[in-house]
């Protein structure tokens, strides 16, 4: 990838911010471990999402100050969280009834690869070691909107948005929205539709970095995120 394009790329914080702008007031949201957790910080003024963590807590609060953790009050990433007015605790079968039963509005996950039909690979590189899946395979079938946050390409510059996943699948045809370091893409009728692209990047340049055909949305909107999050 050219240094030019590298300089156009959004930071993870910016990607998380962009994803947060699409979450409606009152939405029930599950944020995957790691990078997707940043989305919670960027809720627009006047909107309040309710966060679910698959280990049995709904509507939890922020992380406690260092040293004030209660390790019985954690999220799925095993980080300490807090309770707040409205919090509810429940057991694991009830928690995944919420997930699998379609009660979440949005699930946001990371990705190794996303295919044009919405197939997702995000749990195993297929390279041996100790495999671990956690709740990812449940979450991708559990929400009305399944959104992926990801760099547009791998560290080696290979597309992460692909014609077909070559890595082990997490789910088939499950991803609906993709927020990348260069674009916002939706999966529509088995193909990628480009909704937004960072300014300064042409459609052809973005297509060259994408492993399957992009259809231009009508319109394609400039993808502009707060500079201070860069």
């Amino acid at each position: 990838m050219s240094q030019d394009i590298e300089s156009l790329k959004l930071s993870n914080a910016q990607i998380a911010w962009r994803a947060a702008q699409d979450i409606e007031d009152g939405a029930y949201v599950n944020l995957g471990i790691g990078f997707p957790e940043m989305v919670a910080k960027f809720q627009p003024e006047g909107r309040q999402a309710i966060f679910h963590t698959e280990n049995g807590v709904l509507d939890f609060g922020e992380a406690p100050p260092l040293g004030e953790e209660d390790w019985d009050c954690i999220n799925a990433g095993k980080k300490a969280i807090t309770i707040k007015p409205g919090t509810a605790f429940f057991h694991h079968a009830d928690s995944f009834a919420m997930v699998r039963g379609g009660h979440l509005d949005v699930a946001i996950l990371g990705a190794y690869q996303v295919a044009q039909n919405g197939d997702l690979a995000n749990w195993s590189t297929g390279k041996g070691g100790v495999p671990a899946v956690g709740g990812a395979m449940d979450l991708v079938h559990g929400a009305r909107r399944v959104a992926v946050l990801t760099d547009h390409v791998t560290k080696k510059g290979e597309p992460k948005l692909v014609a077909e996943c070559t890595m082990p699948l997490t789910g088939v045809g499950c991803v609906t929205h993709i927020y990348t370091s260069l674009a916002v893409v939706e999966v529509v009728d088995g193909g990628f539709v480009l909704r937004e692209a960072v300014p300064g990047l042409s459609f052809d340049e973005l297509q060259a970095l994408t492993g399957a055909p992009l259809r231009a949305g009508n319109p394609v909107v400039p993808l502009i995120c707060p500079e201070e999050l860069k």
Partner: protein
Amino acid sequence: MDKISRSAAEAVADIPDGATVMIGGFGGSGAPIELIHALIDQGARDLIVINNNAGNGHVGIAALIEQKRVARMICSFPRSADPVVFKEAYLAGEIELELVPQGTLAERIRAGGAGIPAFYTPTSFGTELAEGKPVEVFDGRSYVQERWLKADFALIKAEEADPHGNLTFRMAARNFNPVMATAAAVTIVQTTRLVPLGAIDPEQVVTPGIFVDRVVEIAEPAQEEELNRAGAVYP
């Protein structure tokens, strides 16, 4: 992010003709009488109603049937102390009945809420209620395949509710209410006490608000059993 409706009438206003409606309660305990009566006033017809029973006396579900609004009952036990309304409608061929064993009814509703399209149960194997259903053998024993049950609306009676729809129930009035709350596209709750957010201990929430769409406070709800003992008729 406020789920509060101002009245039972407002809460049920958009239930259309032909809707599938789960109604909580076991006999009179946990029956959301005010929501049912608001549904009668509202006028929707050809409803498919899912409840453990099929009404008692001339109030609640019995009244809904008496007003000829119910095309089909899905229930386990369409009998009661005073079952005349359902019985007459059924024997006259005016209402269809899908009879489901009580545990299977509860589990089918739970499956609907939990994203489980089908499951196997020993219940009803070899009986006429299993006729036409797939059977499979696991570990040498035969089981019947049952499908999930979902609804367009659920009418639920809670004891406490907060503005996000976190709920508690009262004694055996819990019964089908928490399960049905999970299995409907729109879950409508009448609560005896609307409490502020945070007033329900997070450990004691029975139904988390994610399952609830609308909450209306009915501070002194009627109890079906007491209405029937007093000979009440609705409307």
